[in-house]
């Protein structure tokens, strides 16, 4: 199977590889997939209090298309509001990277990763606010 030039580019020069420090505030982490399925994506989003995605990092275990999908997603979500990012559909990724039908699951996983990271941020923010209030009271 030949890869599209965009997949190759993301694979050779992945954007935003890495991790934020675990205890960094305002970071939501989404880990999706499973090793036995051959794909695990970790997407981390640094999100401002107003819900703007300021930075993104990823790490992926998976085929070239999975790596490219997650790399592309980090570029795609940066500067977007979470309400906009959470609505991103996998078809956008398929189109941008020219993924063949057999690789569509990679784009689905990347879409799931965005949702998981944002939901994690929401959960952590909710949890973080509570004790702060309690302290003040």
């Amino acid at each position, binding site marked *: 199977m030949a890869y599209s030039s965009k997949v190759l580019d993301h694979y050779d020069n992945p954007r935003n590889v890495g991790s934020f420090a675990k205890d960094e505030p305002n970071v939501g982490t989404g880990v*999706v*997939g*499973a*090793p036995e399925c051959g794909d*695990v*994506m970790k997407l981390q989003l640094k999100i401002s209090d107003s819900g703007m995605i300021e930075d993104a990092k990823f790490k*992926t*275990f998976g*085929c070239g298309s999975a790596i490219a999908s997650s790399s592309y997603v980090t570029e795609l979500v940066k500067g977007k509001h979470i309400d906009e990012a959470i609505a991103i559909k996998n078809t956008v990724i398929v189109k941008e990277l020219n993924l063949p039908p057999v690789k569509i699951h990679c784009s689905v996983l990347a879409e799931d990763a965005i949702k998981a990271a944002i939901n994690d941020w929401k959960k952590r923010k909710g949890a973080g606010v509570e004790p702060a209030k309690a302290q003040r009271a």
Partner: protein
Amino acid sequence: MLKTPIYMDNHATTRCDDRVVKAMLPYFTEKFGNAASRNHSFGWEAEEAVDKARNQIAGLINAKPKEIIFTSGATESDNLAIKGVIEFQKERGNHIITCVTEHKAVLDSCRALERQGKATVTYLRVDRYGMVDPDEVRNAITDKTVLITIMYANNEIGTIHPIREIGRIAKDKGVVFHCDAVQAVGKIPVDVEADGIDLLAMSGHKIYGPKGVGALYVRSKGPRVRITPIIDGGGHERGMRSGTLNVTGIVGMGAAFEIAGREMPEEARRLGELRNKLQAGIFERLDEVYVNGHPTQRLPGNLNVSFAYVEGESLLMGISDVAVSSGSACTSATLEPSYVIRALGINEELAHSSIRFGLGRFNTEEEVDYVTDRVSREVKRLREMSPLYEMAKEGVDLKSVNWKAMRE
């Protein structure tokens, strides 16, 4: 000067040896006769060439020339052996014993017979090195068993089965023993007499011969093995395989077998050394690499390894100037990782991380050094990108992670 891309996938196919091509060439043009033409010199010349090839092939496996039946390739040979025995022996029984790591040509032939209600099949498991236990073969035999089909050496992990023991058991019990020896002939000694093999499938292109030609050895004596043909027609090949003989291909296959027989000891030694060098080099540079297959009972040119935390297809992509193959799901349409690697009982993640190196006649030490370096650097790069590697380094036991829960 090193030339890329480097071909290191010699279990899939091999480059035709120049000596083979040279032997074949006249049979395209001036010696183009049909080996079945009995009444002119063109036919006689072709028949003579086919007979010579029959001798060359029989010589490599200690068979008699008339026991060699030419086919279109080993897939056809496996089909003919399995379906041919079951059809011929249908009055006697219908049970087949095979093993889970066989080639698809064997497994799918068995499944087709099951589907048609013509056979019941026992699929034996293998140990963690991919080897079948002869005692399990013996225990699986029933009074309905008419065929045992176990490969000589596995095409993915190179594990060599205890064929001689299985051959003895088959003979003891009076069961026909078919052996897919595609990866073994020409690489390690195969002797149908000493090994007790009744039917043996061979291929031309796996040992530096042309594609599109193969053979089936069919024992003629002690006992004579009878099979029903699956292709009907002019009654070629003693009625077992009709169809005009592929004279050019057969000449090439014969030449390839003769060369293999002559050069096998030296070539096996050299490939074993190159393989060991590749393995040692990779293990020296990387941690958490695991060999799939038997530590000693393995084809000399085979190295199948799993690079933990790195998915196989992504690694292939990173070493695009090196042709190897992966047991990763992503190289197949099914999204399932290799059934052979999974049969070893290793965890699924490692099955997705497996790479098969197949060294052959035309590989050099310089290429091995280059591939060692290339692979090691790419694995390191991909591990830096792998969340699993990061988690493992942080001390997270990946087996303890509830992956489904993390998704929600």
